[in-house]
């Protein structure tokens, strides 16, 4: 496109240059120039980089199609298989439950950490320090092997009679170990995100609400948290996506998530690469869905944050856009171009 246009643009710029030199002689008047339809700056390096990328993409495409080790037919065969579906279900279930524990726990720990009660605040701080300080993989293995430390778990009066109890081995299933490991770890990270969000809300909001006679719990729920959400939601979205990928760690404790499922198949059939590709594709599908969902939620919590009229939920659910800010400017540029060419 640029090569086709370049001869005409160079001639016009030369013409305008000479026109400017003529008028420069008369200093009192300003030359009549209309910048609408001005020739754009050309970027030869951009075109070079596009060319390089196109060659690399062609190479990649060639590699994907011609390398027989991908076994695309095997990928296609397993992609919709029921076993894979069950693995995906486990992955999603784990993501949702662990994230719920993380969010609820995170809010509690964050509020506790900001409490005026120094002991509670210190304990919550210690929680964050402890669970963020140990790799989540180590935590998972630890929960899985809890029975070695604590053969029996029971609930009852401290140092007194117990109401209910059982063998740790039968209580802590791989699923429960995974949920505890991922959820408690996540709560520590979420606590910091929530705390940052709560601190981001202006103190005047709390004062105004207090002056209206609202109690502390109500102020938090109705005034501070909804505003903190604007700071909390974007990083939480990233946390959900990270969590979804982190669930693959549970394959080390023999929980049949997506990764463990494909591993157990290729350990039997040796179709390692095609099955890993199946896993990759499904992880990409799931994270893509999460990215889209995240942008919806972010826009919802941004309401009232800008001077523009807010959009309702269905407006942004269907990507309905408001009118462009300066429609007049765009209309002007089109009729002025032919005028320039006649010059």
């Amino acid at each position: 496109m640029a090569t086709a246009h370049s001869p005409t643009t160079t001639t016009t710029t030369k013409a305008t240059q000479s026109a400017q030199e003529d008028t420069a002689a008369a200093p009192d008047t300003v030359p009549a120039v209309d910048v609408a339809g001005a020739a754009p700056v050309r970027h030869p390096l951009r075109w070079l980089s596009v060319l390089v990328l196109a060659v690399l993409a062609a190479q990649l495409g060639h590699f994907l199609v011609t390398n027989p080790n991908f076994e695309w037919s095997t990928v296609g065969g397993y992609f919709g298989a029921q076993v894979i579906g069950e693995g995906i279900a486990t992955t999603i279930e784990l993501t949702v439950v662990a994230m719920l524990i993380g969010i609820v726990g995170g809010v509690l720990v964050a509020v506790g950490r900001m409490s005026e009660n120094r002991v509670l605040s210190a304990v919550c701080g210690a929680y964050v320090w402890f669970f963020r300080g140990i790799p989540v993989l180590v935590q998972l293995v630890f929960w899985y092997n809890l029975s070695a430390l604590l053969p029996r778990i029971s609930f009852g009066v401290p140092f007194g009679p117990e109401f209910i109890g059982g063998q740790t081995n039968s209580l802590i299933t791989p699923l429960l170990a995974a949920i505890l490991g991922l959820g408690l770890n996540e709560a520590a990270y979420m606590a910091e995100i929530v705390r940052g969000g709560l601190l981001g809300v202006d103190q005047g909001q709390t004062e105004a609400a207090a002056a209206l006679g609202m109690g502390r719990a109500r102020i938090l729920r109705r005034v501070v948290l909804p505003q903190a959400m604007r700071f909390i939601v974007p990083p939480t979205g990233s946390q959900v996506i990270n969590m979804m990928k982190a669930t693959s760690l549970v394959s080390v404790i023999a929980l049949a998530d997506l990764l463990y499922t494909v591993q157990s198949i290729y350990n039997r059939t040796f179709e390692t690469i095609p099955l890993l590709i199946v896993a990759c594709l499904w992880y990409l599908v799931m994270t893509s869905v999460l990215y889209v969902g995240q942008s919806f939620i972010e826009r919802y919590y941004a309401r009232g944050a800008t001077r523009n009229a807010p959009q309702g939920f269905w407006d942004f659910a269907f990507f309905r856009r408001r009118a462009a800010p300066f429609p007049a400017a765009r209309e002007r540029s089109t009729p002025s171009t032919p005028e320039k060419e006649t010059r």
Partner: protein
Amino acid sequence: MIKDALATDAPADPVDPATAGPPLVVAHDVHKRFGHLEVLRGIDLEVRAGEVVVLLGPSGSGKSTFLRCINHLEQIDAGSIHVGGRLIGYRRSGSRVHHLRPREVTRQRRDIGMVFQHFNLFPHLTVLSNVMEAPVGVLRTPKAEARETALALLERVGLSDKASAYPRQLSGGQQQRVAIARALAMRPELMLFDEPTSALDPELVGEVLATMRDLARDGLTMLVVTHEIGFAKEVADRVVFMDGGRVLESGTPREVLDHPTHERTRAFLGRFL
């Protein structure tokens, strides 16, 4: 509203202490320290029901701090503040005084409205929801009723067409008028105004002062911290001049503003001429 008839008889005249209501606010020897800085050094002040009292003074004189002590946003260190006969923030039992529980402090604040310098509207709620939030959430007023009251209040401050707007879409003056409507929705017996026009562009100050003048005419008890001498002159029943955490003089606008007895008052007012 109770004073409606009275107010129309003599709208701008100072309230005669003999005919005015009983003291609604009684502050006695109020002290407040921030660390080593003593901000209030023994404030004595009475505000009668229906009275409009303007607190004047240079910045740092403790006006705003004193106002914030009245609804216990700041805790006083010594002395006492009573509003409507209730001791604010504390409870007396026999010869001992106890701190109130947060829940009880919250309860006391219901009857005291406050308007802030920076409006502090809830930006995530529409104008209407801002006004309805406390009546519905705190007083458990049925939504339909709260909505009706809120719309009436918005009309009163001249913003009924902005009910569904969000605060950030409004000008500063409009936001402050919404903040006034929000405070009035709790039907307070006392309204505190903490420099309500200081954050506004000069051309927006008038609309907020007009709204406040309107409330004063309706007989609302108001305690106003402001630098608007004109407003004090026109609307106040009493002007109190503070400096260095003390009340230096107090009296009708004519006494304090036109014939100040104190050198500090004269120096302060001289800057506005």
